[in-house]
C-alpha cells in the first residue's frame, strides 16, 4: 500500500540527530501549521523525514522532532490548537517511558507498546490517505462514465381494490339494526300518508263539500293527533286539493297568511 507516498507536504528532510536541521524543520512546520489536519497529520509529515518504512520508524526521534516544533511555536508565541498541546504532553510522557527504565511495580503499558501504537496509527492514517487517493482516481460517474441521458419514467398505475368480508357486511347490518335501540325491521312507513292515498280519499268525499270547510277537518281518523302523522296527512291532503282544484273539481281559499285553508266543491 505504501510504495507510492505522495510527498506533497514535505520537501527534503534533515538527517537524524541534527539539531540545526530539526529546528529548521520545526520552523518549516510553523509556516505550514494551518495546512495540517491535526497533530497526527503533522506527525505523519514529520515521519516522512526519516525516509524509512513507517514500520521501522524511530518513534523516539519523531517525538523529539514534534517537541522541538512545539517549543519553537511557543517561543514564537504562535497559538496552537489544544490537541497539538495534548499530543505534545503525551509524546513527552512517551519519550520518558522510552528513555527511562520502567520502575519496579509500574503498571500500564510499556514505552515500546505505546510507541508501537503510535506507529500503527501513523501507518493506518497513511494507508487511508492512499486508499482515498486510489478511490478518487477511479472512473467516476458523471466524469468518466455516464448514465442514460433520457431516462423514461416508469408510470405508476395505482389500482385500488376494495374489499369487505361477509363478517363486515353482517356487522354493518347488525350495527344499523341495533342503532336507535333497535328499530323494527319493517319499513317505517306508518307515519306517511301519500298524496295518492289522499287524492283517492278526497275524490270519494268531494260530494259532501258543498260549503266551505276547513281542510284540517278532512284529515282521516287517527291522523289528527300524532304530530308526525298529522303533518304527513295534511301535506298529502293539501297536495291532493291542489290537484283537484287544477282539475276543476274543488275551490280553495285562505283568509290570510296562516289562516285555515277552506275548500268546497266547485260548481255542482
Amino acid at each position, binding site marked *: 500500500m505504501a510504495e507510492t507516498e505522495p510527498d506533497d507536504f514535505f520537501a527534503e528532510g534533515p538527517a537524524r540527530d541534527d539539531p540545526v536541521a530539526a529546528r529548521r524543520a520545526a520552523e518549516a512546520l510553523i509556516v505550514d501549521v494551518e495546512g495540517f489536519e491535526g497533530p497526527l497529520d503533522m506527525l505523519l509529515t514529520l515521519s516522512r523525514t526519516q525516509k524509512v518504512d513507517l514500520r521501522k520508524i524511530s518513534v523516539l526521534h519523531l517525538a523529539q522532532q514534534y517537541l522541538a516544533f512545539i517549543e519553537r511555536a511557543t517561543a514564537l508565541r504562535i497559538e496552537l490548537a489544544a490537541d497539538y498541546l495534548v499530543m505534545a504532553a503525551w509524546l513527552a510522557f512517551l519519550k520518558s517511558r522510552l528513555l527511562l527504565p520502567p520502575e519496579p511495580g509500574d503498571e500500564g503499558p510499556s514505552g515500546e507498546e505505546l510507541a508501537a501504537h503510535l506507529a500503527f496509527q501513523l501507518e493506518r492514517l497513511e494507508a487511508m490517505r492512499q486508499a482515498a487517493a486510489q478511490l478518487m482516481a477511479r472512473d467516476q460517474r458523471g466524469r468518466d462514465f455516464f448514465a442514460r441521458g433520457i431516462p423514461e419514467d416508469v408510470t405508476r398505475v395505482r389500482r385500488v381494490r376494495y374489499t369487505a368480508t361477509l363478517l363486515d357486511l*353482517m356487522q354493518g347490518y347488525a350495527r344499523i339494526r341495533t342503532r336507535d335501540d333497535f328499530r323494527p325491521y319493517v319499513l317505517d312507513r306508518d307515519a306517511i300518508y301519500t298524496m295518492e292515498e289522499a287524492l283517492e280519499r278526497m275524490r270519494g268525499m268531494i260530494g259532501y263539500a258543498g260549503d266551505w270547510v276547513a281542510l284540517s277537518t278532512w284529515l282521516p281518523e287517527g291522523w289528527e293527533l300524532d304530530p308526525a302523522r298529522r303533518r304527513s296527512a295534511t301535506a298529502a291532503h293539501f297536495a291532493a286539493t291542489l290537484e283537484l282544484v287544477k282539475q276543476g273539481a274543488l275551490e280553495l281559499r285562505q283568509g290570510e297568511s296562516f289562516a285555515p285553508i277552506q275548500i268546497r266543491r266547485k260548481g255542482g
Partner: protein
Amino acid sequence: MPADDRTEREESLFEAPPLAEQERMVEAILFASAEPVRVAELNARMPHGCDAAEALALLRRRYQGRGVQVVKVGEAWVLRTAPDLGFLMQKETVETRKLSRAAIETLAIVAYHQPVTRAEIEEIRGVSVSRGTVDQLLELEWIRFGRRRMTPGRPVTYVVTETFLDHFGLESARDLPGLKELRAAGLLDSRPLPGAPSEDDEAGEDGQSDMFEDES
C-alpha cells in the same frame, strides 16, 4: 489503460479509429445525451476523421429487433425503448382498501332488503346516502339497478349482483344469515325492545323472500 486511451486519441488526430470503435462512440453518445443528437454534432464530438453517419447505420442495424431502437426524430437521432415493450414501463400497484362504513352499511341494506330504493336505504340507515357511496358499489359491480318501483316518481331500485355473491362466497342472497343467526352469533343485540314484536325476524325473512321472488 488511461495511457493507452490517450495514445489512441492522439493517434486518432491522424487516423480515424476503426469503424467498430466509431460505432461504440455513437452508441455511448446517444445513450448519454439528454436530447436527440444530429449527425453533425456526432461528427463534431467524435475524433477527427470519423464518419458518424456510417457508424450510425451500423448501430441501427445492430439494434434491429432489440429492446431498444435507434430512432430518428426530425434531423436528430435518439435511443428509445421498443414500442412493443411499453407495457414494461408501467408499474402497477394494487392497493387493497377496506370499504368505508357507509358503503358496507348501504351494501348490507341492499343485500338484505333488495330490491330497495335509495329513499328506503336512507330511511333504514337514518342518514342520507351520498351519491359517491352508491356509485362506488355500482362500480365495484356489487350492486346494480333493479326494476323501477311502481310508486310515484317510479324510483329505481338496487339489487346485489353475481359479483357480489362471488366475492362473499354466497350462492344466493338468501344465504345471508338472517336476524336470528346474527343474534346467535352475537352480532345483534339480543335484548328485544319492549313492545317490539320479535316476529320481525319472521317478517325479515319473509320480506326477503318476497323481494327475491321477482328476480328468480
